[in-house]
């Protein structure tokens, strides 16, 4: 017993679909369905293209998606993790991909420790015994053209150079008249491999300055009139060729234009974005300038590269403490090209990694 006879012809009165008249039932539903399908395919293709573009952008940049072009570039980074194992770290530098992080250790073994991107130590840098037995590695920078690593030594007043495989190459020998002994402190490179050094020779600020060497080590010029800078520390060259210097004991940040003329300052003070005791400075490829304010245990963030000579204050991160994301006398700072910010947290014996 079957309830329905499947071979029976469909009565002409029975409409193919509700709401349609007898004549147009079959001819109108097909194009409608087709149109809907085409729309679905178009949406799918669009989504696939977006996904492919996103993937391609990510493979090229390896940055978090929050750094996609067009998104807000005035946001502040968030704490990610810390790298332990260095004693009273002062300076830090990272290569473009962030998989070689160099940290100068001012106490303990006083070496430069090399970490991978996960914070695992992969090597140490130490100058040969011929350079003396006592060293205090202070600031570190990576030459973008050769990948050589330059380290200033506060005890021997020298700059030691290593290659990317941690092999000591030489002690930097400036070509040209420096006007006597020098005491290199902060280091930075221009995009062409020019080396910028803050020189703190002499006990007073009268002889403190910034000296610039060409890629071959020839003295090109000095910046900062006598008495203008007092214990300049961190230094950085931004994409516009401006040079930002932490004029540490004057409590300010000085901006020199590409010609070496003082173009702007961010002063000491209690206002938003004002500084106390600035030390390390770094700039990322999005034009964000980071200045470590060691006395306030914070990092101040500014934007450079717009029409204004004075960097625009965005905000600060950090604060005093031992918990994650807080500092005890931070000093050095570096960025890579994957939206990471590295800060030496001196008294907490760690390097904090922040990201976007």
């Amino acid at each position: 017993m079957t309830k329905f006879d499947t071979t029976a012809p469909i009565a002409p009165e029975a409409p193919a679909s509700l709401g349609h008249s007898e004549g147009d039932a079959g001819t109108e539903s097909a194009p409608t369905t087709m149109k809907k399908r085409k729309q679905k395919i178009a949406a799918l293709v669009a989504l696939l293209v977006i996904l492919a573009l996103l993937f391609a952008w990510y493979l090229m940049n390896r940055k978090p998606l929050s750094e996609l072009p067009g998104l807000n570039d005035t946001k502040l980074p968030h704490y990610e993790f810390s790298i332990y194992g260095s004693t009273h770290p002062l300076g830090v530098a990272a290569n473009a991909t962030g998989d070689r992080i160099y940290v100068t250790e001012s106490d303990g073994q006083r070496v430069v420790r090399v970490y991978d991107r996960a914070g695992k130590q992969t090597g140490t840098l130490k100058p040969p015994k011929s350079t003396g037995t006592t060293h205090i590695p202070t600031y570190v920078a990576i030459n973008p053209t050769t990948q050589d690593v330059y380290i200033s030594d506060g005890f021997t007043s020298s700059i030691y150079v290593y290659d990317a495989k941690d092999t000591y190459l030489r002690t930097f020998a400036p070509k040209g008249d420096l006007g006597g002994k020098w005491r290199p402190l902060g280091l930075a490179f221009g995009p062409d491999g020019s080396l910028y050094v803050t020189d703190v020779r002499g006990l007073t600020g009268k002889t403190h300055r910034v000296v610039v060497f060409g890629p071959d080590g020839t003295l090109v010029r000095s910046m900062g009139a006598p008495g203008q800078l007092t214990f300049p520390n961190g230094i950085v060259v931004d994409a516009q060729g401006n040079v930002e210097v932490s004029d540490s004991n004057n409590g300010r940040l000085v901006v020199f234009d590409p010609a070496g003329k003082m173009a702007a300052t961010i002063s000491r003070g209690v206002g938003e974005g004002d500084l106390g005791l600035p030390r390390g400075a770094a700039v990322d490829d999005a034009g964000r300038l980071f200045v470590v304010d060691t006395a306030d245990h914070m990092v101040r963030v500014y934007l450079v590269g717009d029409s204004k000579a004075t960097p625009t204050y965005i905000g600060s991160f950090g604060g005093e403490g031992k918990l994650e994301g807080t500092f005890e006398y931070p000093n050095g700072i570096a960025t890579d090209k994957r939206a990471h910010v590295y800060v030496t947290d001196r008294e907490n014996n760690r390097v904090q990694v922040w990201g976007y």
Partner: protein
Amino acid sequence: MKPSRQTTSVSDRRLSRLLRLGVLVLVVGALAFAGIYYQDQHVSAGPSLVDRQTASAEQAVRKAPSNIGTRLQLAAAYQQDKRFDDALTQYGEILKADKTNRFALLGRGGALIAKGDLTAAAAAYHKIADATKKEEFSGADPQLEEAHYYLGSIALTQGKTQVAITELQSALKITRTDSDALYLMGVALLKQGSPQLAVDSLKQALLFVPTGWCEPYSQLALAYGKLGNAPQSTYAGAMADFCHKKPVDAKRQLNMLTKGPVEVDAMLGLGLIAETESSNPEAISWYQKVLRVDRTNVNAISALSRLGVGPTSTSKRQG
């Protein structure tokens, strides 16, 4: 009509397959991207500094269980990690060996306050006071000062105003510049019904911490209100507004006070606000106006010095 129907259904099937394939590619692609992204971006944070310190202190105590120093470090590490019961256990062990160990008593007091047991905390602080008040250097003993401060703070919370005043007086005898003790003393004096003395104490507290501390200004406004001193009360209220990040309200009120009995305070306040807004020329201008009224005003002189304007250049500017 028949062939057309067939073509449509073939095309339909193809389209359906294409759609399904596309969705599959999209889902697999998105999942693969998410996986690669996570693996590439994620770095395991590992134990925190506090966890590391705690683990290291625990190891040190296991090695030398009778060493009071390592026990104190462990208790402090627990306390920092908000593990108050564990901290109290360690303080207890120390006090079994050394009944009057001040560091352990202070730590115990702090942990008990954090747990809300004020009576037991007060007992710990009293032990310090009883043990040290007759010692040779009790007049300059920072631990004794801390004990008196907390005894005052607990008494104030418990509504024992007179006890609080006595304890805070003892703390201030040891450290006259303790701004926290000065503030609490102001609060206690106000509760006791001595607004003028409260004003004196609160003003001293604010001398040491003039910005970023709102409560003293709020209390000062109340104290001036009780004294019937409307201009000063308005001034303190304006500074409290400024402290609570309402600079527009603060400036409006202070500007109204620049020609009256509290003109100096109002102009100093406006100078301070200008400084925090990085308007240094405006701040200098307000401080110079203060010096025109009161040539020896220490606050204005030190503020100008902070802004790099010496007294000489100030007088020259005044012409």
